[in-house]
């Protein structure tokens, strides 16, 4: 059978975001993957250099709408490192609570999307219905559903109210029950399992070699979690487990995320029980001292790393963001390429792509990746392809 290219994206139902992957397929099997990223490149790093530190908070929030609070936490923390100041413990705890709520929302969202990608729309609808509970709590605490605007340099903007705490506790109970239910479904539903088990294998050695991060790495039997390895905020004081599964496939990525959701519920409960009293923010001078700092946060998708360089003015000299998805791109290309011992089908593309929980808006202040191997078979060039599909009967 002749080889044949299937473009996925930039507008494709499997990708909620404009990225483009070109798959070279042989029948239903994928032999090569060539991603083209950059559709989402907005030039945030350049923009950050022309805004003040406070203004940049808004920009960082909007790097990614799903893990927004991870980016602002990372940013605020980074600038606080520049000042060499600690923020009040209550603020640290509130940050942890919001970060974990965000993780729950993100993982549930992902579980729904994963269901949708394998044509299991009922799961999608159910999970998203329950996810609305988290959104309610987040809205009660921060006032917003998606971009929370809770972090500020030197602490958080809003304190937790008693009603919000009561609401959070109630919702956590519902969520725990529902998440456990989904865990049972995931472990028992045969048509679901048949689509995810043994699919998208990423061997532990490859995961380390290609520098995968977050749940993708943890699903390949490597216990690596920034919250444990490089504890920030209040994570040093909070007891929790870093999880890992060793099946290295999509199924194991599902289990890691579902279990992390349960773990996050426990973390929030602990934080609510041990919430210290005191102020929630400190005042810091307008301009941080000259210097540089690196800050890392475990975003729902993995390690999020920011670097800041200050020259003592009110604007950063350089601000660098590396979001988790970029770190996982080489890994997902590896997962999607058929190897001697396992083949990958077209039908598996959506779920495998989704299994790293891609978030290209974060990633794309950057990147395109082309497999350097040259294909000898007949292939249409990108321009040909575009011209071809742009042709219409009535011009």
């Amino acid at each position, binding site marked *: 059978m002749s080889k044949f290219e299937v473009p996925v994206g930039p507008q494709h139902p499997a990708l909620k975001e404009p990225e483009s992957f070109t798959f070279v397929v042989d029948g239903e099997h994928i032999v090569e993957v060539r991603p083209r990223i950059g559709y989402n*490149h907005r030039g945030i790093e*350049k923009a950050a250099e022309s805004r003040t530190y406070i203004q940049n908070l808004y920009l960082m929030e909007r790097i990614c*709408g799903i893990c927004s609070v991870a980016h602002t936490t990372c940013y605020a923390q980074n600038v606080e490192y520049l000042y060499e100041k600690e923020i009040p413990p209550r603020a640290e705890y509130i940050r942890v609570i919001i970060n974990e709520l965000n993780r729950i929302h993100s993982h549930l969202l992902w579980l729904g999307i994963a269901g949708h990608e394998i044509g299991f729309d009922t799961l999608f609808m159910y999970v998203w*219905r329950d996810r*609305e509970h988290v959104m309610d709590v987040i809205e009660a605490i921060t006032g917003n559903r998606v971009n929370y605007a809770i972090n500020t340099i030197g602490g958080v903007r809003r304190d937790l109210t008693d009603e919000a705490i009561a609401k959070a506790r109630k919702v956590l109970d519902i969520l725990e029950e529902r998440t456990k239910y989904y865990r049972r479904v995931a472990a028992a539903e045969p048509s679901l399992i048949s689509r995810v088990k043994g699919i998208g294998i990423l061997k532990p050695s490859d995961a380390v070699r290609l520098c995968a991060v977050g749940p993708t790495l943890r699903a390949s039997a490597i216990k690596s979690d920034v919250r444990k390895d490089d504890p920030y905020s209040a994570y040093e004081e909070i007891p929790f487990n870093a999880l890992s599964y060793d099946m290295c496939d999509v199924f194991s990525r599902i289990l890691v995320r579902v279990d992390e959701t349960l773990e996050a519920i426990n973390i929030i409960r602990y934080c609510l029980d041990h919430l210290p009293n005191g102020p929630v923010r400190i005042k810091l001078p307008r301009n941080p001292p000259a210097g540089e700092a690196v800050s890392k946060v475990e975003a729902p998708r993995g390690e999020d790393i920011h670097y800041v360089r200050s020259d003592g003015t009110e604007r950063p000299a350089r601000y660098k963001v590396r979001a988790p998805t970029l770190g996982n791109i080489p890994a997902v290309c590896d997962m999607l390429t058929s190897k001697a011992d396992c083949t990958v089908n077209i039908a598996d593309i959506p779920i495998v792509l989704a299994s790293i929980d891609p978030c290209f*808006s974060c990633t794309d202040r950057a990147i395109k990746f082309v497999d350097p191997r040259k294909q000898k078979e007949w292939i249409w060039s990108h321009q040909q392809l575009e011209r071809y599909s742009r042709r219409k009967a009535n011009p």
Partner: protein
Amino acid sequence: MKLGLVKWARTKSPWLVHFNTGACNACDIEVLAALTPRYDLERFGAILRGSPRHGDVLVVTGPVTRQVKDRIVRIHEQMPEPKFVVAVGSCSSSGGVFRGCYNVYPGLDSVVPVDAYIGGCPPKPEAIINGVAALLAKIRGG
């Protein structure tokens, strides 16, 4: 009479094609949330379609980046007439917080014609439904 029936059908059956031109995902998840049980856009007959050939309403989220510009124009071309474009969120309406960045166009309307704007960063699902309803009212009116 015939036109009346067609107009009625158009307002009752807006099929959406969702395109992200470089958004931060916030608007996208809210667009998706509008389809889920709590909001359920299907009540209005709206369903999400994958192929631009099937769509009536192009729902665009996010600032238009240089690289995505050709794609959005092409998808807009692929859709059969009559077609409508909704810009969801501040970025899509004006460039939002990214206005002035070197890779971002100042709003979706600088690339394709837009019929309705939904403000917010991101707009809540209720606002999105309201925006779609406003578009339908516009179709009904003229």
